[in-house]
């Protein structure tokens, strides 16, 4: 037993508990900004500390919970995402009528769940990790009780996620029944071909497809993204998705390869469906969060091509893409958070004239959206390069062509946002207010997006090491 393997998760959990304790010592109506800063700083410390975890490759108790480079990379993605989201959510949280410190704590719980997921090497840990993350999100999504849309989103998320969990659990039970084991490595040796494996695998895949919102398992995502508070949506879009991928890659590369299960084909179908549905339905959207929800469905489609390739290069591409997607996402949602706070609206038209009132935010939004679309020299282009060259290398040219073309189609709806920001007249003359930390976050995300597009070397190298 090796608790040092858990040190990152434990640190985050302790940090969360610390926040709760400090909250108890504060007056009810005192602002909780400091708690937010504390959470961000704590996470930052943990983030920097996590660099020392590379190259350890240790497991907790005979391979049940694995801290390899792969896991560390994902944990870092969650941590950096959480730091940035916390920083830009300070203003949003301050406007909550109650339980502001708990917001940060729950966010950290969700991060712990994701981190557990990325290390999960057995079905039980996988399940519990998913549920820890999902539970935190149930509450976070429904956090704004004054807005029943938020509650509605939470209920939808709860019901559908539970149903998906049930389906996934049924699949897990079948796999357990066939192999008699819970650990991935043991399962892989114990599996035999049978209808139960087929059904179990399909149910498991459905569960993952739900988490990464791949059509037709995506239908919860737009509603939930729209209803949730902006920072939560951001965290859902990147963290929940990335964690889903982290777990999925591990399951599909560790459990199934030897069985001849045609998972590349399934991934291909899901990937194609995600790209198509995400990009096409995003076109007519008017609510920016909803548009971003569909966009994130499309992003998941691109990322899944790495799974189609199924090679180390493909996995590397996925990891690279997920990391840069964090920054693009933070940039976009950060601006949405600012606009939502300032103008009380989340429609694309509410961004009108942003380029004149807050040019920095407009540029950041543009850069983030274009990065998602894969326009060079932004990071998204490099991400697509790694993904699609891997998938072409594996012999699936068609999905790469589809991906490239649809990602260019996506420019259409991204540019509609850009057009609104640059062309339309501002809807009011009030000077645009945005918190310093939000501006910093957004700027940081933008710089990171550009930097990783222009000089992707280090991150690419890191992802490559982690993918092995």
């Amino acid at each position, binding site marked *: 037993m090796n608790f040092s393997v858990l040190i990152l998760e434990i640190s985050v959990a302790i940090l969360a508990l610390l926040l709760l304790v400090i909250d108890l010592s504060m007056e009810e109506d005192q602002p909780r900004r400091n708690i937010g800063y504390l959470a961000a700083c704590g996470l930052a410390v943990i983030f920097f500390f996590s660099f020392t975890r590379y190259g350890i490759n240790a497991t907790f108790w005979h391979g049940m919970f694995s801290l390899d480079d792969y896991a560390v990379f994902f944990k870092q993605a969650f941590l950096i995402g959480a730091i940035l989201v916390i920083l830009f959510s300070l203003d949003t949280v301050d406007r909550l009528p109650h339980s502001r410190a708990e917001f940060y704590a729950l966010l950290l719980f969700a991060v712990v769940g994701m981190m557990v997921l990325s290390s999960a090497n057995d*079905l*039980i840990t996988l*399940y*519990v990790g998913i*549920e820890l993350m999902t*539970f935190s999100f*149930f*509450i976070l999504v*429904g956090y704004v*009780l004054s807005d*029943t*849309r938020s*509650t*509605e*989103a*939470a*209920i*939808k998320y*709860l*019901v559908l996620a*539970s*149903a998906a*969990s*049930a*389906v996934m*659990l*049924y699949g*897990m*039970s*079948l796999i*357990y*029944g066939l*192999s*008699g*084991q*819970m650990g991935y490595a*043991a399962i892989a040796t*114990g599996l035999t071909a049978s209808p139960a494996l087929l059904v179990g695998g399909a149910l498991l895949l459905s569960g993952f497809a739900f988490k990464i919102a791949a059509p037709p398992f995506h239908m919860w995502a*737009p*509603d*939930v993204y*729209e*209803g949730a508070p902006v920072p939560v949506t951001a965290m859902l879009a990147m963290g929940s998705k990335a964690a889903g991928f982290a777990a999925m890659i591990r399951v599909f590369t560790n459990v199934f390869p030897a069985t001849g299960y045609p998972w590349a084909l399934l991934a291909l179908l899901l990937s194609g469906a995600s790209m198509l549905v995400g990009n096409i339905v995003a076109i007519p959207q008017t609510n920016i969060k909803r548009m971003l929800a569909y966009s994130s469905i499309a992003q998941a489609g691109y990322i899944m091509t790495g799974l189609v390739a199924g090679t180390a290069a493909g996995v590397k591409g996925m990891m690279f893409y997920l990391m840069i997607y964090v920054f693009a996402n933070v940039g976009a949602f950060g601006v949405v958070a600012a606009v939502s706070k300032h103008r009380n609206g989340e429609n694309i038209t509410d961004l009108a004239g942003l380029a004149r009132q807050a040019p920095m935010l407009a540029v950041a939004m543009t850069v983030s959206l274009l990065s998602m679309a894969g326009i060079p020299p932004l990071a998204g282009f490099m991400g697509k390069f790694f993904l699609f060259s891997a998938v072409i290398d594996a012999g699936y040219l068609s999905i790469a062509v589809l991906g490239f073309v649809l990602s260019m189609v996506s420019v259409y709806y991204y540019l509609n946002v850009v057009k609104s920001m640059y062309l339309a007249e501002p809807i009011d003359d009030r000077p645009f207010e945005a918190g310093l930390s939000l501006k910093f976050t957004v700027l940081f995300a933008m710089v990171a997006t550009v930097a990783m597009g222009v000089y992707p070397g280090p991150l690419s190298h890191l992802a490559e090491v982690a993918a092995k």
Partner: protein
Amino acid sequence: MIGLSHYLLVSAALFGLGLFGLLTKRNLIAVLMSIELMLNSVNINLVAFSRYTAADASAGQVFSLFIIAVAAAEVAVGLALAYAIYRGRGTVSVDEIDWLKW
């Protein structure tokens, strides 16, 4: 002689009933109850496998315990949310919870 398959079939039937409830009940609380049925069917599976086939028998029961714990928490949160929406809209009818769409 009752064997593994019997339990598995009961479990499948229970899963199907739960699923039917999930899809067709109009009351949110009934929907939550249906989900519990589905989770129970999974538990039956796990315990049955642990009893009849598993090399790692205790893992199945451990898993079941985790599921029970999570399910209990889920009901708590689910009811809290149901109450919240009831407060906001005066209804827990699932088909009226459709403000978010398109």
